[in-house]
């Protein structure tokens, strides 16, 4: 082996970052593009090589650990920089580098006219590094490096157009929300460290069943805290509000970070820690409930949004909810599978939306679109593929993964969660086709300016769209399992070594009939959803809900006023508390005490000066009084 197998993968984009920084503006646009895309392409190649190497091993030995160096060691506390490749991270690393590469290519076209082209690729490559570190990390702390690293890049990229106050605000919001999650993550790590004495995955997972009793407080606390981290990163209730706002960033960023890769890190982490989660049934239930709730909640908001990217953003939140509830019901494999397919079709959808926005010179409002199908044929076709995929119609990718999730939920007896998932599926079909119909069908409602510049996107943007559309169609096929074929799916078998423990604890397989019934139900609700969408928006653009239930509609449009609530309850409270802490407590009380001593001294000084009258008589009097007092002392104490 001439080249290191694993650390080269994140190192490649990092190297590109360094080169980019060093070369500066000498690089020009073409150079930047080549550097950015090339490094990711190479990383993809390196990832493929590593995964092939992994695949060539027998199933039981499919873990590769590569130790780079000791990061820090204090006493018994030691953390290494070392990388781990196992089937789970293999999936992730391929998705990240693969989809990442496509989005890089897409960005070359999308960002071509942006003056900060170089900076964009700098951030993007940095993000690739962080994301790859995250998925390849061999221990919690290194994962955390990637975890925060992607958060940082997300912050930078959301606020990429920093001159727009909204973008800057959204970036900050994303970072702080993430930090709230990280607070949990750090404490979770500390708990794990305290119990297991190490942060290395293999050791932790080996020790955990010995150290923790099932359902014990320690492991429950640890996993709940880790999950808090995941809710931040993956935009789940209660920390989801940053993701829709993150749409202020350039669209490729939304595709890469806020759809395909970063936001799924939470799911990855939960899947990675499934050993721990399975020791804590309460945590698993929480994950399932939060996931399902988020899936439904976000979907309802997505129903009425008019910004094309925001619809997709809520859809992302919703889909992430699916992944979590998959994990929560024990279907880690299903969750990861949906993660992958979602990466394909959601990236596709975002890129398609980006293509639309690009074509419309920045117009994002669905109300000013319409009839674009003929004007943007490639975009239209690929978007349609993505929409069908996410709606869960067979045989598109989304169908298989979503179906597996629902099946797992049902099979494990989480009927409530299953029902919620089913409703969510209907809503998904509805809002996605609403989007499709409003954007591509009907009469054009373009602004004159958009009309004037309207054009199909360049090949560098269309080709990635096509590739992703293809993946959205066929990407699910590797995960085809029951009831369509005998035995486990290819994907499940690949992940089997990782989720071994999970499978043992898992439910008994359902009967074939039940499986078919479930498939039928999920297809039915999806069709119902899209049918309703056609019924409402096929011809008109009016919002039926607005007329039928204006208050409900307003609630949804305002996203249940959650942002406002957070602002009131947290942001302003903290701000006014801090203000008072500063102006009253710090300046008046703490510092006031300090200055008070000084004033006291000055006052005493002024008082004492009064005694110094300048008259000899006074002086003699005090002199005599001194003698009197001293004599008095002897009178009393002899």
């Amino acid at each position, binding site marked *: 082996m001439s080249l290191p197998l694993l650390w080269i993968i994140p190192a490649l984009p990092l190297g590109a970052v360094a080169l980019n920084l060093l070369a500066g503006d000498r690089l020009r646009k073409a150079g930047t593009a080549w550097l950015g895309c090339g490094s990711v392409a190479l990383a993809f190649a390196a990832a493929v090589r590593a995964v092939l190497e992994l695949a060539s091993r027998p199933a039981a030995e499919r873990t590769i650990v590569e130790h780079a160096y000791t990061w820090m060691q204090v006493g018994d506390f030691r953390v290494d920089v070392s990388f781990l490749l196992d089937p789970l991270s293999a999936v992730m690393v391929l998705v990240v580098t693969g989809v990442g590469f496509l989005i890089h290519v897409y960005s070359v076209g999308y960002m071509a006219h942006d003056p900060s082209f170089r900076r964009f690729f700098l951030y993007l490559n940095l993000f690739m590094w962080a994301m790859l570190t995250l998925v390849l990390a061999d221990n919690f702390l290194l994962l955390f490096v990637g975890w925060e690293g992607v958060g940082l890049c997300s912050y930078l990229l959301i606020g990429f157009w920093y001159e727009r106050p909204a973008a800057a605000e959204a970036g900050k919001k994303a970072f702080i929300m993430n930090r709230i999650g990280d607070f949990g993550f750090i404490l979770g790590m500390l708990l794990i460290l305290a119990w297991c004495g190490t942060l290395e995955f293999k050791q932790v997972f080996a020790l955990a069943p010995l150290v923790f009793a099932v359902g014990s407080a320690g492991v429950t606390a640890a996993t709940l805290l880790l999950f808090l981290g995941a809710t931040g990163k993956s935009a789940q209730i209660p920390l989801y509000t940053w993701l829709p706002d993150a749409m202020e960033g350039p669209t490729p960023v939304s595709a890469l970070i806020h759809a395909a890769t970063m936001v799924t890190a939470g799911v990855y982490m939960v899947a990675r820690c499934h050993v721990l989660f399975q020791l804590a049934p309460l945590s698993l239930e929480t994950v399932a409930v939060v996931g399902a709730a988020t899936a439904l909640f976000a979907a309802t908001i997505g129903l009425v949004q008019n910004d094309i990217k925001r619809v997709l953003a809520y859809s992302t939140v919703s889909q992430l909810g699916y992944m979590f509830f998959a994990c929560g019901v024990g279907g880690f494999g299903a969750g990861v599978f949906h993660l992958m397919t979602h990466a394909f079709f959601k990236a596709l959808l975002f890129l398609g939306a980006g293509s639309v926005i690009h074509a419309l010179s920045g117009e994002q409002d669905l109300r000013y679109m319409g009839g674009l199908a003929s004007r943007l044929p490639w975009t239209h076709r690929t978007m349609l593929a993505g929409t069908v995929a996410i709606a869960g119609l067979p045989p598109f990718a989304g169908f298989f993964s979503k179906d597996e999730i629902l099946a797992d939920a049902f099979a494990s007896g989480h009927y409530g969660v299953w029902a919620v998932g089913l409703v969510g599926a209907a809503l998904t079909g509805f809002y996605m086709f609403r989007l499709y119909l409003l954007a591509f069908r009907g009469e054009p409602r373009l602004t004159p300016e958009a009309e004037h510049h309207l054009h199909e996107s360049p090949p560098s943007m269309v080709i990635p769209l096509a590739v992703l559309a293809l993946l959205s169609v066929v990407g699910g096929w590797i995960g085809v399992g029951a009831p369509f074929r005998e035995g486990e799916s290819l994907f499940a078998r690949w992940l089997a070594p990782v989720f071994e423990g999970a499978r043992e604890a898992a439910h008994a397989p359902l009967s074939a009939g039940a499986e078919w019934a479930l498939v039928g139900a999920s297809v039915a609700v999806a069709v119902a959803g899209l049918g309703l969408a056609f019924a409402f928006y096929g011809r008109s653009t009016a919002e039926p809900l607005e007329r039928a239930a204006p208050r409900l509609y307003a609630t949804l449009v305002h996203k249940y006023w959650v942002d406002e609530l957070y602002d009131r309850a947290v942001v302003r409270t903290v701000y006014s508390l801090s203000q008072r802490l500063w102006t009253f407590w710090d300046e008046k009380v703490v510092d006031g005490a300090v200055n008070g001593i*000084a004033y006291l*001294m*000055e006052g*005493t*000084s*002024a008082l*004492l*000066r009064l*005694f*110094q009258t*300048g008259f*000899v008589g*006074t*002086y*003699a009097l*005090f*002199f005599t*009084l*001194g*003698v009197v*007092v*001293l*004599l008095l*002392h*002897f009178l009393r*104490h*002899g």
Partner: protein
Amino acid sequence: MMTPPAVPALLAVDWWALGAVIALSAGALLLLLLELLPGRGSANRAAAVTVITLVAAAASVLRVREARRAIFGGMFVHDGFTVFFTLLFCAIGLVSVLISWDYVKRLRLPGAEYYTLLLCAVLGMVVMAASNDLITVFLGLELMSLALYVMVGFRRSQLESNEAALKYFLLGAFASGFLLYGIALLYGATGSTNLRTIAQFLSDSPLAGSALLIVGALLVLVGFGFKVAAVPFHMWTPDAYEGAPTSVTAFMSAGAKAAGFAALLRVAASALPGIDVDWRPILTGVAILTMTVGNVTALLQTNVKRMLAYSSIAHAGYVLVAVAAGGTEGNSAALFYLAAYSFMNLGAFGILALLGRGQEERVLLADLAGLGFRQPLLGLAMTVFMISLGGIPPTAGFMGKVYVFGAALQAGLLPLVVVGVLNSVISVFYYLRVTVAMYMTEEPAAGPVEVSWAAPSTLALLATLAITLWWGIQAQALLVAAQESVRGLL
């Protein structure tokens, strides 16, 4: 060894041990005689003679520094304590002469008389420190005081100077009355004025409850307390210091205080051993009051001279801490502190004496504005003196405080030490105000105050600066000297 012969043997007197006293008296007389000679520049001549006299006095004492003698029937003792203080007084005198050299000419004060009185005051101080008899202590004190009353009022056509002299004189005489009455009572209680004899009598027949002894000792303490400016006998200090010619202020703030403490230590240690323990509550109380009143009242002063006067009160308080601690450690700490204090205070007042042209006196805080950068040496020196007075390393004042507070701590006077260190924090505030004025205030539009540089003053400045810094960095020699000096006392 110290038993006096029954018949006074004049020839048995060790004249070398008396060298300082003889030199100082002779110098004073010589100055008066020289004034009869005609010629201009009599002030320069007088100053030069004074310098020679002081050097000679110091040299003669140094020559026999190892000797231990009791002369004149034990009224005058030559021991380490005497040597230490004689040298200190001569040094104070020397620096004062250097400070006065130009100042006296500038203010057109009568030079010969000035230096005569200065020498007589030094003589009085030496006698106070060397006395082993209450009579000589009293006479030495009066000699010094009378000279100082006159010196304070030396600018006789100036209202402030005259007022200062009057106040100093009236209160000084008042205090002398108390001191004298105290001596009378002590005499009555013990039958002697000789310190050794008193001590011997007390050790033979302790008179713990004797009213005579207690009141006598108390009044003596009050008398010395006046001289060292201990609260509440301090009230003359700011007025006298402010009104006196600056060079005189310098001289008396260092010399008179040191002499007062010398006498106090001598009497307490030689005649009333154990008084430091018995009277600790009183000394502690007075020390606390002295430090606090001095420092706190100084805070708001706008006249630097007056501020330093209050500061000198506070410093008396620090020395009183050492006195309260007592014992070898306490006494040697007091000596150390007095030596350190003398030079930094002389330096500070010496700088004030430089300010202004001709007969003007510019000693307000506002007068210092912007001076630091205009006069780098002066600014630096003043800063060092202020830092030292504030007790901040690396200066003599810091080492002094370490030693004093260490001694007090060893004696178990923790509360006193805590009050003392907190006081030094308070004091730093007004010392810093001087540096604020010099370095951090814009100089007035009319330009900064003029500085009357002269070679002797510069020399004095450099000498005090060097000593202040050196004793802050390496005080071993002074430490040893202070420790050796008090050994013979006890």
